């Protein structure tokens, strides 16, 4: 079965991409991904904060003690923390690129206007074949309107696009009021692809310590549904490529992603849990399903259930909400899974 896919203008051997994760930190793992059959690898993100705030940190805890005491002008050998931190990222991009023959997608994460966008060019120079710009953003400012947030994101996309010649994908969070319209604007600003969605790590509360606790839960297949709906709603209606991120755990998830119109699907949790063997397993499941359902090519499959093509568009819209609620019945034997066992 020919699984070859075009995404952001890149020729991929199949539609399964390794999403942004810590995996590229380890060249052995990177090679494992390629050998396992992955079509492209996304770097972990270089954060805006790394670029702008590391200095503050290093100055406060290293620089502040320099030139303060007769016996010691400093307390560390001359290693420039920040400079090395950024260079290390760029070096890693170069190392990963050299280690693989499949495309490498750089990742830059930021939400403020500023000079940090220049790093887009440096990532390109380091060898990335495309760039994923992650607009991970939590709207906490009580004075900032939705329109201002959208405007800012569009400005950032324009600014980044101006600095690179490689294709640009924009990774979004689901919390935009008018996502289709916003997606269209991003498209106009130069995005070659949209990646839906970022996963927000929701903090939990530690009731013993009375404090907020950062948590990191890997994704579940159930999270895929949010992505499926919005990809379905956008597919065919905007010019850019679409990629699913979050909740892709097996071949069936991949099938669903393609059905709603995604060019590619990104896997992270599955790879972190099961390692590179998961890749072939997922692709085998895809092929097996396609053969079973007699799909001859990905093109035949892709977008068959998007908003334009699905036989029941209401299922993607508000009516679905009513339907789901009506179908809900309390389960008599339900037990709180968190309750202690008797």
């Amino acid at each position: 079965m020919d699984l070859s896919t075009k995404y952001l203008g890149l020729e991929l051997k199949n539609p399964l991409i390794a999403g942004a994760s810590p995996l590229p930190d380890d060249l052995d793992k990177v090679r494992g991904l390629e050998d396992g059959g992955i079509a492209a690898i996304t770097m972990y993100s270089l954060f805006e904060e790394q670029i702008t705030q590391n200095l503050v940190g290093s100055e406060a805890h290293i620089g502040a003690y320099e030139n303060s005491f007769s016996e010691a002008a400093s307390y560390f050998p001359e290693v420039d923390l920040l400079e090395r931190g950024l260079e290390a990222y760029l070096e890693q991009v170069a190392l990963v690129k050299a280690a693989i023959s499949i495309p490498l997608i750089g990742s830059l994460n930021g939400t403020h206007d500023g000079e940090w966008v220049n790093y887009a060019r440096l990532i390109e120079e380091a060898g990335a074949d495309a760039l994923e710009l992650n607009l991970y953003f939590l709207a906490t400012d009580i004075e900032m309107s939705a329109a201002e947030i959208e405007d800012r994101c569009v400005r950032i996309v324009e600014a980044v696009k101006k600095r690179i010649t490689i294709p640009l994908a924009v990774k979004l969070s689901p919390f935009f009021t008018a996502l289709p319209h916003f997606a269209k604007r991003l498209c106009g600003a130069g995005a070659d692809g949209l990646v839906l969605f970022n996963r927000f790590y929701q903090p939990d509360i530690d009731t013993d310590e009375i404090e907020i606790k950062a948590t990191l839960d890997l994704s579940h297949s159930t999270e895929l549904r949010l992505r499926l709906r919005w990809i379905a709603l956008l597919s065919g209606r905007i010019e850019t490529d679409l990629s699913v991120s979050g909740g892709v755990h097996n071949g069936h998830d991949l099938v669903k992603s393609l059905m709603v119109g995604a060019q590619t699907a990104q896997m992270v949790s599955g790879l972190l849990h099961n390692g590179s063997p998961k890749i072939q397993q997922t692709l085998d499941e895809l092929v097996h399903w396609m053969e079973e359902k007699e799909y001859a090519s990905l093109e035949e499959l892709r977008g068959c259930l998007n908003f334009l093509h699905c036989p029941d568009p209401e299922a993607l819209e508000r009516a679905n909400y009513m339907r789901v609620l009506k179908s809900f019945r309390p389960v008599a034997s339900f037990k709180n899974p968190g309750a202690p066992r008797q």
Partner: protein
Amino acid sequence: MKNPKIKMNDANEAVASVAYRASEVIAIYPITPSSGMAEICDEWAAAGRENIWSDVPEVFQLQSEGGVAGALHGSLQTGALSTTFTASQGLLLMIPNMYKIAGELTPFCMHVSARALATHALSIFGDHSDVMACRQTGFALLASNTVQEAQDLALIAHAATLKSRVPFLHFFDGFRTSHEINKIETLPDELIEAMIEPGDIARVRANSLTPDRPTIRGTAQNPDVFFQAREAANPFYDGLADVVEAAMAKFGELTGRRYSLYEYEGSEDAEQLVVIMGSGAETVAETAAYLNAQGRKTGVLKIRLFRPIDLKRLVAALPKTVRKIAVLDRCKEPGALGEPLFLDIVTSIEEARQTGLLPDSFCPTVIGGRYGLGSKDFTPAMAKAIYDALLEPKPKRRFTVGITDDVTGLSLPVDEHFDIEVKSVIRAVFYGLGSDGTVGANKNSVKIIGEETTNFAQGYFVYDSKKSGAVTISHLRFGPDPIRAPYLIKNASFVACHQAQFLEQYDVLEYAAEGGVFLLNSIYSPERVWSQLPKEVQSTLIEKKLRFFIIDAYTVAREAGMGGRINTIMQTCFFAISGVLPKDEAIAKIKEAIEKTYGKKGPEIVQKNFEAVDQTLAALKEVVVPATVSAGFSMPPVVSAQAPDYVQRVTAVMLQNKGDHLPVSAFRPDGVWDVGTSKWEKRNIAQEIPIWDPSVCIQCNKCVQACPHAAIRSNFYSPESLDGAPDCFRSVDFRVKDYPDKRFTIQVAPEDCTGCSLCVAVCPAKNKSNPREKAINMRMQAPILDAERANYDFFLQLPQPDRATLKDDVKFTQFKEPLFEYSGACAGCGETPYLKMLTQICGDRLFMANATGCSSIYGGNLPTTPYTCNSDGRGPAWANSLFEDNAEFGLGMRVAVDQQNAIAKRMLAGLRAELDDALVEALLNADQTDEAGIAAQRERVARLKPALEKIGSPPAKRLLDVADYLVDKSVWIIGGDGWAYDIGFGGVDHVLASGRNVNILVLDTEVYSNTGGQASKSTPIGAIAKFAASGKPVGKKDLGLIAMNYGNVYVARVAMGAKDTQTVNAFYEAMRHPGPSLIIAYSHCIAHGYNLAAGMEQQRLAVSTGTWPLYRYDPARHAEGENPLRLDSRKPKEPLYTYTDNEARFRMLKMKDAARAKELGQLAQQFVDERFALYERLAAPYVKDGEASN
């Protein structure tokens, strides 16, 4: 030959650059002020920089300077071109090998930043005591006077040693030259190559020890031949001056810079001559030139080659018109006829006359004087005082200059107002805080002007003795001609005060020249600022006709997004006002420098700095200085009126930076100082201080325990004690049922707190409705200062609970009075909480031997010291001997205590018939294992003393002298890991093996903290440190396990932040263990690179990840049939990186070399896992008879 590059360098870097490129093997060990040379060589080697033969020199660290010398001896014998850097006590440790190296005619050059030797006190500062102690070793001693000279003579020394086979000690003045930044012409590789002849290197190899043509060295010689064989080396010394002179001549041809062994500078027909060595020679030369321009006939003879002295050249350099000579030595040799250089000059002249080198008619008066000891500034005024003294018909034969000696009357009078500096030199003095970046910015300014323009520049920086809130004073000179002036600026055309509060603490404007400029960083507007200045400042501004500028730098910094860093802003102001460069050019240069410094860190940072520069010019305002003083207040007194007389007369003067004015009679002649002086120095360095919320507090005392400065205290007391309390004094019911009807208070010392917030971090109690708040919370200091000062004063007079009734646990230990308070340790220091606790546990009967290092600096660095005494006048008896000998020093204390105790007991038994028998019996058999027992014994001794007085016999009097030794004393030997793991390890091991009742406390920061973060054998795998710039590849030495091997040593490994109960128990158990004990205490440190407010949390992580397992090994348990080793922490449950990722020392390696970081990270994890498994096996319960084993 390519053009030499002009650079702004200090001598340490300039010398290291030559030594590195001319060496193959470099053995190092840190010691101030030479550490910079070793550090930079290590960095170059780590970065793969090559020497002139395209090899990367092998740079390796030893455990002590003694070790360095031994390693070098081996390396030299084996034919490698080797070098090292050292100073002071370090140099003394090398002396035994120096005799060997010289005795074997081994070509070798070492570089010494000359520093004082510890005598009545330690001094890290410069003089020639150390090099003068080497003059008999057989090394050639070559002195440099300036930064340029230090670089140039370094090369000449390397070349000359290879040619002559005589080893060289090349030296220059510690700090004054080693740390002065000046404009120099650097030496390109080709020039070094041209100076070092391949044939000389071939001879080194040929003379080396090798099994390919074996020889034997280090034989033992008998009376028949030793003497003759020793004399066989004479020709090499006889010819050495020729070799050095030839090298200097060759160097002169290559560079145009000409040096001579003995250089005369001054009038051709000089009548008064000063002979001197080192940087002071430049001061004298400048002064002589100034005086000669006024018609005087003066001159200076600069001594460069001091050993061997070349009589012929020396006397040839003397102007024959000289009538009087003053020879200056920067060292002191008590009891000698004179100091070494003086004696040599007198002898030389006499010898020259006797041998006809000088005519019989040449018989000048020669007098000898001391100057500049411990970096005492040596100024033109002092040089003039010497020339003036030489004008007198009968000058003092021996004198000192630069101090007022009102005891032996040796000092010369000095005209303080004498100033020779020329107008073309712009002189600027900056007062700043260590943390505000002032020195860094000034180093930058000096570089800009020196390297980017044709101007010359000089920078020298003075720091105070504190590690937190340190004040820095920068002295900068700029001008069109080369700048020598190796002394501090007196009349500055520009004075800047970067912190407004200094105006109420120091006489900042004493540096200002008339008509100069004063720049102040002030939050007030030009209209309001005048009224905020104390009377003294207003008056000086008017009297000296100063122009007055202000800027609100913190606001500009904040608005430009630079946080609290005001360095770029103040630097811009300097350029804008001083006129040292045209304003636009200056701004452009600053921006270039910013680009250079921050360019790679990201355009964002550059942009922020640019914005700050641009906003600075708009924010800089000139203030019109009124014609009259109108201030409503004066500078407050330096210390409280309640302070003791000595503190008022002496300490207060030092606190004002005016200690130079104190006369000799102000000091005790034996180095003894009163304790408890830190309490009089109210530093007010915290912007925020912790305030207690009694409603939330659970009364655990953890905040009190964690406070590094004893600035938070708690007490419980009867309600009546609250009579007269300030209205705002906080007090709640004490919630301990053994103490009903008591009240409880936690109080901060608002002026002593450093604002580190460790107390808040460790507070376990949260405000239930607002968990952001705890039972102790940081609040702005200024608005609550008066109230909290009143509260603290009241708190201090509350009655102390009876020690004998307090339990030995975490909480109640903190109710015992700390006898270590308000030290100058870093804010958030991880060492001091342990020391404070030790003084709480046994401070009133405590002997402390303290190894040199951080703990001796914050423990004993003047002006004020933190160890204090209780209301009975008892407190820790603290002393510092050296770095390397501390364990032995403490052992000596123990032996002396035991001996005096034995004497007392024997005398007591002998006097039994004349004393109350029951008292004698009780005294001899007292149980002193707890506080009650101690108190009872003290009470018995108190009864014994009058009885002995009454007897009055010689034995009774003798017993009286030692009667206090009938009360048990606890001897503690304290130091850091550099001492315990490295330089002092032999002593530690020996003392542990002695079986004597001493306690060793290792404050383990896993790095040499005091000298600036060099690796020790305690540094863990994967940490970056100086001397381990590529990450430490091997694991930390297991000192505890080594100690356990003896079987009778109590050993504990503790981390207060992880398990304070275990820490407290370990201290008590160690103290009570009748033999030796060792406590290894995890101490977080600024050299770990993170916010120390999280220090205790990092301690917890160190334990939970297993990198710092907690245990106690108590030999007493073995006697009870149990395994003496008990693990006090659980199996690691978190991966090591959860701990290491929080600290820059580990993170830096990740950024520098990710692959190596990963490799070392895995090794470190493996090391941790395997060691924990080993401990588990070692701590397994003993299998009792009859129990099955599996």
